[in-house]
């Protein structure tokens, strides 16, 4: 479904990605783990078209995403829950969700919007109670739920999640992971970036380990969980 071919991305002169190959198949949960500064966020921002790669290609459903602007990439079905959630602080919860549906509004009917918003509210009932509250006044966990809900409003084919568990209480973390599984079971393909490597690998069909802007290892979630290097470096065992 998604294929990154030898992607190089840099910030001014700093080379952040040095030739990355990643493949995500339809229906999978694939996770990308790595230490701080490895290039995980850079990878997701490059897929979404926010950063332009210096070289390499990204193929989604058989078509290149080269020189495609970020909003058109969303229209093709790739949505992102970015690092730091990036809720629109002075839009209400409802308006944030409406913005999530921005790319589909023109194509589908109101009923689609209503279905999606009901689905989001059944995943995260608290959002329904906060519907008129400004996004910026939500708690961190609520913002994370809103960020995921907002991305789901667009009927994504592929969902990119950048550290969805960051800064959340353990109960919230397990809720978010359960939700990711549910979303995947409903047919959404997922590329997940996580610091919480153990939980992420357990959840994922396959995983990639990123180190210094290059893929160091990849394999099934199960294999990586039992890999000695991964255990030492990322699972703290």
């Amino acid at each position: 479904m998604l294929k990154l071919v030898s992607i190089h991305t840099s910030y001014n002169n700093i080379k952040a990605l040095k030739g990355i190959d990643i493949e995500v198949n339809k229906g999978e949960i694939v996770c990308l783990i790595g230490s701080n500064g490895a290039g995980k966020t850079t990878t997701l921002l490059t897929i979404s078209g926010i950063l332009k790669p210096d070289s390499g290609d990204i193929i989604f459903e058989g078509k290149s995403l080269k020189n495609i602007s970020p909003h058109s990439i969303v229209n093709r079905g790739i949505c992102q829950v970015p690092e730091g959630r990036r809720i629109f602080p002075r839009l209400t919860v409802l308006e944030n969700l409406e913005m999530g549906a921005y790319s589909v509004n023109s194509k589908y009917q109101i009923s689609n919007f209503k279905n999606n918003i009901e689905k989001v509210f059944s995943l995260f009932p608290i959002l329904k109670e906060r519907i008129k509250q400004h996004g910026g006044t939500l708690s961190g966990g609520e913002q994370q739920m809103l960020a995921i809900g907002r991305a789901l409003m667009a009927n994504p084919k592929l969902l990119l999640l950048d550290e969805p568990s960051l800064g959340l209480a353990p109960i919230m973390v397990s809720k978010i992971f359960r939700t990711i599984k549910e979303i995947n079971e409903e047919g959404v393909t997922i590329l997940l970036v996580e610091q919480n490597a153990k939980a992420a690998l357990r959840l994922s069909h396959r995983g990639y380990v990123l180190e210094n802007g290059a893929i160091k290892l990849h394999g099934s979630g199960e294999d990586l969980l039992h890999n000695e290097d991964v255990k030492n470096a990322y699972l703290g065992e």
Partner: protein
Amino acid sequence: MLLQQLINGLTLGGVYAIIAIGYTMVYGILELINFAHGEIYMLGAYLAIIFLGLFTAMGLTAASIPIALILTAILTIIFCSAYGFTIEKVAYKPLRNAPRLSPLISAIGVSIFLQNYVMLTQGATDKVFPHRFGEAGFQFMDVNVTYLQALIILVSGLLMFFLHLFIHKTRMGKAMRATAQDKTMAALVGINVDNIISATFIIGAGLAAVAGIMVASYYGLVNYFIGYIAGIKAFTAAVLGGIGNIPGAMLGGIILGLVESTGSAYISSEYKDAYAFIILIIILLIKPSGILGKTTEEKV
């Protein structure tokens, strides 16, 4: 006497407010003080004179003044919006990732260019608005309100009302607010940020055009320099209300108009143009974020 000044102030204030909205909307999205915005207002005044002059020559004004004025307004708004759109594409968009000072300098350049362009093509002397509205009006609580004043207050009020509805109720208005708050995230939900920025310039320029038409008809005289003074006053109004904040620009404009008219009546009309600067200095000293502005820690 006071009530009379309040009516005069409201007339002026409405005009300042709708110019100030253009400053504040562009600032809200690009964090750019669009120094060329006052020049759009000046172009609006000139274009109105040119189009109405044309309609007068064609005999349309003699046939129906309202139709001639409405057509003039429509054409002026279209032309000014086209200027606003083009200025953004030519002078600001190529500098979007440049250091912050660069687009600011570019804006000053556009402003100087437009002033000289109008001076060269239209002459350096005052131009006269082709239609005199006269003093006809009505009594309102012992005060004379001319029909033109009432029209200006009504039009600026309606424009502000509809802009507010647009920003808060329409899909595009919400996308504008989202873009102002976080451009990257706006792109990640599928908003075409370039289109939103263009729309912002088009709306701002259209409002400035209306302000230009109203001032040209109110004072009857314009010159190529009016955009500079009005620009500074509207900028002051935007800062007074809290730059980036649309209701703030409306409030700031009206306060500035009221201060100017009461100040001219009770203190001295010699300082008519100085009140804006005094207000600007006071607000920068006391509350730089403006009346409705957020404190600076909350960026975006």
